[in-house]
């Protein structure tokens, strides 16, 4: 009897110790995020969520379980970004090329998409808690009907949220996005040209298609996303794999993290934010303000007084 009491006491004390430890850890994490958010933070961060399958194989699990772990990582990282007051997060969930995977895996991903989309948007859940508008960016007509219905329902549930944006890119391919944008620009230019044609009846007006116009017609930009500041690719792969090529080829910091996506967490993300802050402080990056979402103001550079003037969607910070 004495032995049983001793063992029980040992177990309970151990359990209490772990609970206390977790509580402190959670508080420390939240404090760390509060400290980070006092400096400049990016407006738009994109993640290529790579490595779910390799993670599953490494841990002796089935591939769908790896995708399930990937979803938990998404929630974790999304909450980190929202606590840091990053206004727009984009994630590459499913590529158009991924339909080439085995039917079992594709079916598992479709079922995961349907259940988790609605779970994310439910009342009291993460998106509701932080006022996040969900956009599903991509060729959703390629999805089965039940997934399309889930996408529509999820977007409707969050359409009135104004604080932040979550872009889930699926099924997505950047070249497809660029081609669609070019197609839309050409159609618009043709319709303008056919109505206006010439200026005074003699001179033919040029076709007015610029790179800024193409940018504004990209699917992700049309949903109110600001310019992309940081792109993170996990699992150690060092290529873009047809993700946001137009958006990230200029003025975007690239990070190739060795961690698999289900393992990606706060301590993988903190150095990325610290490097962003240094880039802003040392003049290589401009702090940005959202044009449509949120009421944040630009953080000043090193606490000195600054004058700001708005140029398009970016704010040029000039320090005295």
């Amino acid at each position, binding site marked *: 009897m004495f032995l049983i009491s001793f063992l029980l006491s040992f177990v309970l004390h151990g359990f209490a110790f772990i609970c206390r430890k977790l509580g402190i850890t959670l508080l420390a994490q939240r404090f760390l995020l509060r400290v980070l958010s006092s400096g400049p933070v990016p407006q738009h961060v994109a993640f290529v969520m790579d490595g779910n399958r390799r993670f599953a194989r490494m841990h002796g699990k089935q591939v769908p379980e790896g995708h399930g772990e990937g979803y938990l990582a998404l929630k974790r990282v999304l909450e980190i970004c929202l606590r840091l007051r990053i206004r727009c997060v984009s994630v590459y969930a499913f590529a158009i090329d991924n339909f080439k995977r085995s039917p079992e895996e594709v079916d598992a991903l479709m079922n995961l998409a349907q259940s988790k989309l609605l779970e994310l948007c439910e009342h009291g859940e993460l998106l509701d808690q932080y006022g996040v508008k969900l956009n599903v960016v991509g060729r959703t007509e390629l999805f089965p009907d039940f997934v399309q219905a889930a996408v529509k329902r999820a977007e409707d549930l969050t359409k009135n949220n104004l604080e932040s944006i979550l872009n889930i890119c699926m099924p997505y391919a950047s070249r497809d996005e660029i081609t669609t944008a070019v197609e839309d*620009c050409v159609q618009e230019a043709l319709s303008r*040209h*056919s109505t206006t044609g010439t200026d005074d009846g003699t001179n033919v007006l040029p*076709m007015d298609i610029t*790179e800024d116009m*193409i940018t504004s017609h990209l699917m992700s930009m049309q949903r109110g996303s600001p310019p992309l500041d940081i792109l993170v690719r996990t699992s150690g792969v060092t290529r873009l794999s047809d993700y946001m090529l137009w958006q990230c080829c*200029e003025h975007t910091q690239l990070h190739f993290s060795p961690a698999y996506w289900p393992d990606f967490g706060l301590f993988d993300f903190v150095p990325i934010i*610290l490097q962003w802050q240094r880039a802003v402080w040392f003049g290589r990056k401009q702090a940005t303000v959202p044009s449509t979402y949120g009421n944040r103001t630009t953080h000043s550079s090193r606490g000195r007084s600054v004058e700001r003037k708005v140029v398009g969607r970016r704010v040029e910070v000039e320090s005295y």
Partner: protein
Amino acid sequence: MGLLAYPFLLVLHFLYSLTVLVLSVWRRLRQFPPLPLKASRQRIPRHLAILFVTDSEIDLSTTEQRLLESVDRSVKWCQAVGIEQLTLYDSDGILLRCSESIRKFVVSSPIQKKELEPVNPVINYPPTPPLSDYSESRSLSPEGFGASFPGVKITALSAPKKQSKQHKRRLASNKDDLKTLNINIVSRDASKPFLAEMARSLAWSERRKQKIDSGPSTFRLTVPVLEQHLEGPNGLSAPDFMIVHPVHPSKYNRLPMELHGFPPWQIRLTEIYCNRLRKKYRSRLMWFLPLEIRSAVLSSSLTEWEFREALDQYAGAEIRLGR
């Protein structure tokens, strides 16, 4: 809370700097030399792109000198390794302005055998668009014959690596015996502006088609069609591998890597390499030197170490194509 947290943020940055310094030193001590240049590797890129990142702290003449040195070396290494196509990019167009100099040293590159005929590299400049007037009745678009590629293409020929005794006696007048390295020199103009110009060209083509067909039609564009325009003979093909080389590595390697406006369409599956350890803190130690001396000391051409390490990284990469 933001103001109270700011000192903690500075402490955090200080701790991070220390950590990065220690890790950098550790990695430099632990790094293994890359395989030799001509070592057998699992795969070699067929099309290599080198993205040169310039910096305003390095003066223009030093930048040009470093770029030309890098181009000279990379051409020789590509020929040695057997890379078929080389794209050289810098966003400001410095390389384009130096294309004549590049042509000259590509011509003067040592060829293995004296019996070889002099090689005349072919330079393909973009076609001069015809004079345009803006008459409605004109059959040609005001933009010319479609979008013209804003870059320079040079074809360099070199002797093959190994030659048998029979080849030693024969004049290498047969081009099949010579290896071809196609060199593309591009700037930011070949990136988003070229895509916009291509879009304008497509709009004009569609306008003409609508006039001929005498009726409105909905313009449709598919990925393969746009790919043909952008990567075809008048465009730039997609590189398999890209080396990002900063002319000022000491400053560049303390901040994250970027792509500086490289043509976006072409980098869909391009592996990217950048050596982040070179000369990382050197500029911090030389802040007191005059700018001219600092430019000379801190600027860097592409090194063979970087090139070999890059090839090793490419050889070890795994391609899945969505599967």
